[in-house]
């Protein structure tokens, strides 16, 4: 029996769902191996009988909480995908302001019609079975997770920092170029794609299980960042994980 797959979008840029659609070469095999039954962005058909729910985006409204609870009830496996769903991601920024102010400022008189709550990752609302981090998710990792689930394996979640893969692909460390990087404390598995792509690691895959935050802060300071800059660096994708890095 092919597993029945649903893909849901919450508050996000939908780039992670797009990454699924970007598996152009694998698409025929994916369609053959999976029974994709709900995927609003590309499907009109839909069904509520799914085994695995992939969730893109973070939870930012009351109605999304309700929707998540319903998904949890129906799905055997819930797998958040992407920084917004796994970490809260960039959405967590609005949490820094009181929600009534946010609403009033935006909608004025109409505020009571709208529903906004502090942004949060999916696991803060419902229990999850696994997660695929990244902003956006890495196509190859998505495929691998699907393969492992199909094979009856618990999917592998990398816990080595980005630096390790950055070295494996042979990058020159950006600290050597006078830039700064969150690679030493960020969960690898992306092949250090941002450094390889000419940028730095912004921490989109979240922190590793036991990050040495003090050591990281020390090297950022040594590289000339102010406390404010360091906070910004961490808060780009990890604003909701404040308790770990503050």
């Amino acid at each position, binding site marked *: 029996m092919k597993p029945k797959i649903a893909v849901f*979008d*919450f*508050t*996000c*840029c*939908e*780039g*992670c*769902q*797009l*990454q699924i*659609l*970007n598996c*152009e*070469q694998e*698409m*025929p095999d994916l*369609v053959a191996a999976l029974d*994709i039954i709900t*995927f*609003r*962005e*590309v*499907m*009109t*058909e*839909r069904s509520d009988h799914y085994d695995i729910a992939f969730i893109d985006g973070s939870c*930012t*409204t009351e109605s*999304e909480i309700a929707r998540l609870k319903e998904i949890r009830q129906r799905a055997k496996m819930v797998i958040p995908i992407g920084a917004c769903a796994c970490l809260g*991601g*960039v*959405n967590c*920024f*609005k949490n820094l*302001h009181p929600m009534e*102010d*946010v609403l009033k*400022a*935006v*909608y*004025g008189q*109409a505020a009571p*019609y*709208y529903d*906004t709550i502090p942004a949060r990752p999916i696991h803060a609302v419902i229990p999850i079975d696994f997660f695929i981090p990244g*902003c*956006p998710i890495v196509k190859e990792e998505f495929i691998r997770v699907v393969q492992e689930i199909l094979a009856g394996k618990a999917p592998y979640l990398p816990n080595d920092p980005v630096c390790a893969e950055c070295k494996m692909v042979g990058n020159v460390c950006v600290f050597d170029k006078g830039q700064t990087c969150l690679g030493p404390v960020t969960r690898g598995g992306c092949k250090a*794609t*941002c450094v*390889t*792509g*000419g*940028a730095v690691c*912004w921490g989109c895959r979240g922190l590793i299980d036991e990050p040495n935050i003090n050591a990281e802060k020390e090297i950022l300071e040594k590289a000339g960042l102010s406390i404010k*800059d360091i906070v*910004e660096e961490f808060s*780009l994708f990890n604003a909701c994980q404040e308790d770990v890095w503050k």
Partner: protein
Amino acid sequence: MEVSRIDINVHQLTRVEGHGNIIVKVSDGKVEEVRWEITESPRFFEVMLQGRRWKDVHVIASRICGICSVSHQLASLEATEAAFGIRPSEQTILLRKLLYVGEVIESHILHLYLLAAPDFLGAGSVFSLLDSPEHKDEVLRGLRLKKLGNDIMEMIGGRAVHPQAATVNGFGRLPSTEDLLYLQGRLRNALPELEAMVQLFKGFELPQFTRETEYIALKHPQEYAWIYGYISSTDTGLATLDQYLEVANEYCVPHSTAKFAKHARESYAVGALARINNNYEQLNPMAKMAADELGLKPLCCNPFMNNIAQVVETVHVVEEGIDLVEQLLRIGIQEEDIVVPVKAGRGIGAVEAPRGLLIHDYTYDENGYIVEANCVIPTNQNHANIQRDLEVLVPRYLDRGENELRLLCEMLVRSYDPCISCSTHMLRLELR
């Protein structure tokens, strides 16, 4: 057929980016309500940009939209560069244009094959088309073209969604000559596929529905404008970028989390059709032939033709890509020092995102931190026009019955290729 009562409530329209509803109520043969409603949760990006260092700004801006992340990045980079008084090198501009070609191909093909085509082929999704022996090959062709777009973005930008290489005044990583030669081959090989795409869409029957409106797009004296130009309107002619606020009058409407916009009339349209209506003459030869073949001529006021305009533009950008690669090979890729002279100031960046005119407007302090940011999103500019189109379409097709009318409404909205999540992320948050 006598239709006295219609109650259409499309909750979360499918095969579009983001969340929107279509509500149509007809009773006793009278149209009581036609509403295009946006329910996407807002994300307040303009506030997020406030206080950020210049080097992170385009990284954050990219996250406004996963589908047109390159557009947001480039508009953002242009705004920052304008604020700092930077003029990027020829190489940087060529590479940006090439990156853009990748995005336009990917985005248009995504819409044409994965979102729109199922309507014309009577399917619910591309997945069921892949299962059908009749359509499988067409879909595979679409996927190949889509991959071409993604591969260009990967090679030039680092990856397809939220690429990392483009930075203020340059590229953090440059393609090699072999990369460019490889792309050249890939682009050339795509030409026959484009021909097949044109034939496929020629076979689709589009509703003959027209409604005159204003079309706004960037315009450039020398080229079909993508990432540089003036603002051009089919009603009022040219305007400079700093007049953008007069053009895009944004306003809030009840029950929508997105803002609407108007200019010379009560609504206007942006996007592929708006571009062709403004810049038809600058299309490449093959693209013009495709336009001819598909019966697209300015001024075209059938919103469903936006699909066709995307087909034509896809042909155009592949040709443009071949040309850009040749230019890059001619000048030879050089490593450049990326110098960024930070200073206080305001800058505006404007690009034609696949879905239409996109503007970022930043004000920086002397240390390169953002003081104020404003963004005008394509789909916001289209919401009002979609609403007006629906208001005219519904009474005209009332006799078709509820099901067909619902499909027509959906197809109409879909033909704008709306990017709803973008459109709600730019709500201004003024905190006191």
